[in-house]
Structure formats: C-alpha cells, structure tokens
C-alpha cells in the first residue's frame, strides 16, 4: 500500500471491518504532513540536540576506548564469564517475565476487578523505583531472613541471595513491568470480539486465549520481551544489592564494569563497549522486525 492512496486504505477498511479501522486511519493521518515536506525548524533543531545528547556519550566511549589494549582486556576469562552470565540471566529473567507477566497483563486488560488501577500502579512501580531500593525490598522479602525467604530456607534449604537464581529474580523484578505494560497496551488495542466469537463457537476461554488472543498480540509480546531483556541485561543496582558479586555466579557485566572502574578505568571502558555492542546488536536486530509491527 503506497502512502498516496488514502482511498484504497478506506476501501481496505470497509472490507476488513472494525479492528483494522484505527490502524489504517492512523496511517493515512501520518502520511499527510510527511508528504508536504521536511520537518519545521523549531522541531528539527531540538530533535537534533536531543539526538546528540543521547548519542554523544556513547560516541565518547568509542573515542576514549583503549583500542590497543582491547584484545588483552577482552580475552580474559572473567570478561567472558560475566558476559555469558549476563546473557543467560537476562534471557532467563525474560522467560520468567513471559510466563507470569503475560497472564498478569491479560488480567489487567481484560478482567474488571475492584482496585485494578491500584494493582496497575503497583505493577509499574519497579519502573520508577531506584534499583537499589528494589534490591533491598527483595532482600526483605526473599532474603535468608526475609518475610518469605525465611520459610524457603527452613523448609527447602533454599536461599536466593548470592546465587545465580537470585540474579534472575532481581532482573525479572526490574524488567517484568516493561513486558506487562507493553502486552497490556497491545491487548487493549486488540479487539475482544475475536475472543468472544471463538467462545461462542465452543472454545473455552483458555483455548480462545491460546489460539486467538496470543497470536493476535504476538508482536506486542515480542516487543515487550525485547524491552524486558534489554533492561535485564543492563540491571545493576538490584542485582548487586540482592545477589551480591561473585565471578561466574552472580557477577554480570554491569557489576564487572562498576568494579573495574574502581582501579582500572580502561578495562571498564572496554567492558562497557562489549555490553553496548551486544545491546545495540539485539535492539537493532529486533526493533525493525517487532516494535514497528505492533
């Protein structure tokens, strides 16, 4: 569909009916001003300043990178250990978020219950909470002496602090709200009549969710998962507070960067670059495919 065919868009609109209407109209709205020419200067200038502000620190990292000693710094086993741990834990935290976050998002989007606004606020709280506070809160709840953690220790001999599982818990705590928000938004945009149709045709509500809703909101889930994964990869405060720092077990890349900065800034820059490269590769690789598809 080309940008200069609002007529055809309307035609598609009437053909496919309700759910596509919003999307198509939105698109034709957007093509209007774009067709009339470039961005006005009062918008373009701040936009470019904004871009420079966000990109300049990253460029500075590249400029100040110790390229010559880079190979030595990056071949150390501790770096690879930290990177491997970061990738494994961020992926595990994303998996945890998917398993419990998507149902939570569905609950928030589709079920009316008293206090839903409050629940939604609580769910998004980790987004604005300082990560260190999140770590302390996790210690109070799941630590060896915590409200729930005490029983885990007594009954199963399970303690989460200082373990890789603790890293996953800390990362999931901070990253899951991104997924929930993203999925809830997609669910609200998706038309519930498809599910209703499925249930009137004899499907159970869970089957309808699995066979109709889930495929419908898949791009939203994917976008949320990418966001959560990226957030988990960069998590620092909650991890070091809740899970501690031990190479190979709980020392993820952000922790390695922070501690390297104490006495070897060059190594810290090198490690930062690795984390940056991995993040950019994943975000760039997935963004075009998923984020704009929703």
């Amino acid at each position, binding site marked *: 569909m080309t940008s200069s065919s609002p007529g055809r868009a309307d035609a598609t609109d009437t053909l496919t009916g309700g759910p596509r209407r919003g999307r198509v109209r939105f698109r034709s709205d957007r093509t209007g001003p774009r067709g009339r020419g470039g961005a006005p200067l009062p918008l373009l200038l701040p936009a470019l300043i904004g871009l420079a502000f966000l990109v300049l620190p990253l460029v500075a990292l590249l400029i100040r990178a110790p390229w010559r000693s880079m190979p030595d710094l990056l071949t150390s086993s501790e770096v690879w250990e930290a990177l491997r741990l970061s990738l494994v834990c961020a992926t595990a935290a994303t998996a945890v978020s998917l398993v419990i976050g998507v149902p939570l998002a569905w609950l928030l989007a589709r079920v009316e219950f008293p206090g839903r606004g409050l629940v939604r606020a609580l769910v998004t709280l980790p987004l604005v909470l300082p990560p260190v506070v999140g770590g302390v809160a996790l210690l109070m709840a799941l*630590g060896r002496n915590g409200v729930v953690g005490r029983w885990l220790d007594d009954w199963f001999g399970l303690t989460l602090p200082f373990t890789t599982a603790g890293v996953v818990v800390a990362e999931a705590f901070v990253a899951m709200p991104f997924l929930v928000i993203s999925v809830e938004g997609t669910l609200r945009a998706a038309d519930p009549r498809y599910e209703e149709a499925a249930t009137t045709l004899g499907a159970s509500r869970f089957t309808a969710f699995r066979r109709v809703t889930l495929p419908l909101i898949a791009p939203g889930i994917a976008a949320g998962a990418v966001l959560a994964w990226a957030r988990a990869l960069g998590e620092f405060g909650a991890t070091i507070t809740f899970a501690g720092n031990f190479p190979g077990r709980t020392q993820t890349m952000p922790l390695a960067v922070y501690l390297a900065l104490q006495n070897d800034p060059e190594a810290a820059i090198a490690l930062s670059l690795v984390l940056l490269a991995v993040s950019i590769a994943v975000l760039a690789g997935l963004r075009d495919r998923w984020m704009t598809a929703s």
Partner: protein
Amino acid sequence: MTRSVRRTRRMMKVTGAGAAALLGLSACSPSGSESATDSGSASGGLSGQVTVFAAASLKESFTKLGKVFEKEHPGTEVTLSFGGSDALAAGITGGAPADVFASASPRTMKVVTDAGAASGTPVTFVRNRLEIATLPGNPGKIASLKDLTDSGLKVVLCDRTVPCGAAAQKALDASGLKLTPVSYEEDVKSALNKVVLKEADAAVVYRTDVQAAGDKVAGVEFPESADAVNDYPITVLKESQNAGAAKAFVSLVRSAEGRQVLAESGFLKP
C-alpha cells in the same frame, strides 16, 4: 537539611557570641601551636567555608571534628562530603571545589598527588585495622580468620578493587589461607550490611565499621589483621580558596583532640 541546621547553629552562635569567642580562643591555642605555625598567627581571623572531602569510614569522627572546628573558629563553616575514596579522588582531579582531602588509602591519595592537585605532601593521620564482623552473639563461634574457611559459613569480602578488599586479601595471603566468599561486595559498608541483614554469617571489614554498627554485629579480632593495616592520608588541596582554614582543619585532625575523637571511633594511631 544540613545547611539549615548549620544556619540555626550559626544563629545560636551569634546570640552567644561572647561565650563562643572565649571558648574558641581558649580551645584553639593548644591545637594551633602544635604544627600549624603559619596558620596559628591567623587562627583568630579564620573565616569562611572549608570543604572537606573524606572517606566514608571517617563519617562519624569527621562530623564531630567539623563541629569542634566551627566552635573553635567562629565565622568558619565546615562542609563535609563523604564517599568512596576513589569517587572523591576522581571528583577532585575533575575539578570539584574542595579544600581538604582525607583518603582511606595511599593509592587513592596518589591519584590526587599524581594529578598535582595536592598542596605539600600528604601525611598519614590514622590507621585502620580489619576485624571480622559476625552475627550478634557469634552463633558460628568464629574465633579466627581460619574459622571463616568453614564451608558451612556464608562469608562476604570486599572486592579486591576497593581498599578493604585489598587489605583482606593481604591478610589471607599472609596467613596462607584460601577463602571462597559468597560475594565480593562493592564497598565496606555493603559487606557489613549483608551481616547486619543476616544474609551473610560473617564479613571482613574495618574495626571502625564494626564499632559504628553497634550491637547489630559482633566483632572478632584476628592477629593477621596486623599484616594489612590501612593508612589514611590527609592533605590540603592546591585549588583551595581558603588555605589558612584548610591547614587549621588538618592540624585539628592531627592534634591530641582530633586523635582522641578518631580513637573513639576505633581508629589506630599512625
């Protein structure tokens, strides 16, 4: 908040100016005469702000000394900034407006002197020794550094990149012990807090931290700590806008009175 406290304190000072001036004069003569001969003559006329960057472990004692200084030199105002020595040193070399720097390790002080930011040679004013912090009542019956190698214990150490971790490693090396902690913490306070929160059974921290934690932890001394004593250097900074007052503050820290305050926090004589 601290500023408003200071302001009320200053107002109280104005109302009781006569008494304060008398107190100041009588108190400053012994400390002024010790080493700061050049500032001694001007000590009556000291005024203005003194900004002191000090290692986090000096918080209790330097807060006390700051009050003593303001009392001894009416018209001065001591602003204290506490933090990790590395971060403070980075701030100073980056141009932070400080008059005095007190560091928890010679290595971080060297960052400042290498950058040419110190005025004169830094002097060691206290030393700090390591101690084992364990749960109140010492349920693990820890009596020595060797007891920490027991696999049933959760021990945390400071990371080797920070001074307390380097010192702990030195003590362990000196005694030929191999200790695998559950975590290498990013600074001494977070190592201590893991014990305070009962998440870890023991931590190797400074004597002063054990003392500051009060009855939330139990302290166990160990002889190997003598092999890893931390020196604390202090210096006036080159960029100081108030060098006279800065020198006077350093001499207060090094005076008998200053030493007494520091000893109360658990620091050792240099």
